[in-house]
């Protein structure tokens, strides 16, 4: 398999399911070294996410950067208001209860600044198909426009380009559980819960519900602890189960490789 490059990537990381699989795809398919970037934006689950992120980084020998946004991002139930558990029962004409407006645009700018400081050319998000319809800043259009805007404001060759990628963007959460399980993703040191109860995932917030549903559909046991009883099937994930998904990940890797080559950033290409 040809490596994309000997590059590193700044990986925006929350310790959620998507984040953890993103790291696995970068490491095992893209052959890129991830440097985790955890951002404190005043989210209610800050402590649980941060502790889980530290455990994940430590258990997997990864570098971790933590960054605090000085003012909370306003206008979201994830950062404002009371701490009641929100289950999305809106009729669809309202925004999702867990929407944080412009969050990923802010994250992109912060990620790019660290990338530039550390002489890194890649910033990676962990988007997925399942959430694309609810969050406009989780889409391929968002990524494409971000890349175009950054390239248009990069004074090459005086400044090196930064590319924003999302190796998880073409997959549902269920597919990510399958890929992650196949690649050995460290799900145990992940958390998706917005409102943990005594360090246990609540099992009823939107994020917990979607995570549980993804593991159930994938027929894989979720090894994190829930405050409620949840039954999972447990079947091994074979190469045949994920072959099509791995092929798609390889296509995206090839696209990134071509972009990097255009700017002469793949001098370290090696074959493993």
């Amino acid at each position, binding site marked *: 398999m040809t490596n994309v490059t000997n590059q590193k990537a700044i990986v925006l990381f929350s310790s959620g399911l998507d984040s953890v699989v993103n790291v696995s795809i970068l490491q095992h398919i893209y052959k890129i070294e991830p440097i985790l970037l955890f951002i404190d934006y005043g989210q209610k689950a800050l402590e649980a996410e941060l502790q889980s992120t530290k455990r994940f980084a430590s258990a997997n020998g990864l570098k971790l950067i933590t960054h605090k946004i000085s003012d909370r991002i306003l206008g979201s139930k994830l950062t404002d208001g009371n701490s009641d558990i929100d289950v999305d029962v809106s*009729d*669809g004409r309202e925004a999702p209860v867990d929407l944080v407006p412009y969050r990923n645009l802010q994250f992109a700018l912060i990620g790019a600044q660290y990338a530039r400081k550390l002489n890194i050319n890649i910033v990676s998000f962990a988007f997925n198909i399942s959430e694309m*319809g*609810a969050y*406009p800043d989780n889409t391929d*259009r968002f990524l494409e426009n971000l890349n175009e805007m950054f390239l248009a404001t990069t004074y090459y060759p005086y400044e090196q380009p930064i590319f924003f990628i999302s190796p998880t963007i073409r997959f549902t959460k269920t597919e990510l559980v399958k890929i992650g399980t196949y690649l050995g993703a460290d799900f145990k040191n992940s958390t998706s819960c917005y409102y943990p109860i005594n360090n246990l995932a609540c099992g009823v917030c939107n994020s917990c519900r979607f995570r549980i549903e993804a593991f159930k559909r994938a027929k894989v046991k979720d090894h994190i602890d829930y405050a409620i009883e949840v039954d999972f099937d447990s079947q091994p994930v074979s190469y045949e189960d994920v072959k*099509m998904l791995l092929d*798609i990940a390889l296509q995206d890797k090839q696209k990134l490789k071509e972009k990097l080559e255009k700017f002469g950033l793949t001098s370290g290409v090696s074959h493993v």
Partner: protein
Amino acid sequence: MCNIVLSYSNNYLEPDLVDYMLDILPTKGRDNYSALIVDDDFNVSLIHNKDYDTFKTLVDLHMPTKLLLLHSRAIPETETNTYNGPNIYTNNRFYVAHHGIIPNAEQINKNIKIDSQALLDIYETIDYENINSWFMQSVKKYPRSSVEIVYDVENDKLVIANTFMPLYYTIIDDVYIYVAYKPDDRFCSMQPYSVKVIDLKEILVYT
């Protein structure tokens, strides 16, 4: 959540182009597959299958084809099984494919079987004369639908629309191609929150 691959043309679809369209179909959504085919006499056929390899064998295009609409579905974990059906739906006037989610589908239509069915109720009021304002009003009714391709049999019109999620287009061998996931740099992005109407009667097949 889905991929949509659409072509309309005044020419025969070359087998290589059909293969290309089928190849890029599963790049975004692999839970089931649908195809709408309109030939040069406006005969319509609709194909559904959950298995990609079987589906490809069913899309047999050995005839002049005015319109080919391919749809692959990704079923998000947010959806109940109620909406998990194949996703080109018709009431015999409109054929509707969409990309996105419609969490308020049951409020639009209580007897719904799959979510794209809810869009039919909205399209019954389509106003071609004032398509832009009609579209922006309809977006308020189901804001998370995002990309829609609708074939109006009665008027031989094709409606192509997107909101915040993208729809890309290009021309390959004189054939207009639209996709919901950009396969390469030949494709350009439609403006967000825009709609266009194609009159298929003006797309005559060469003989």
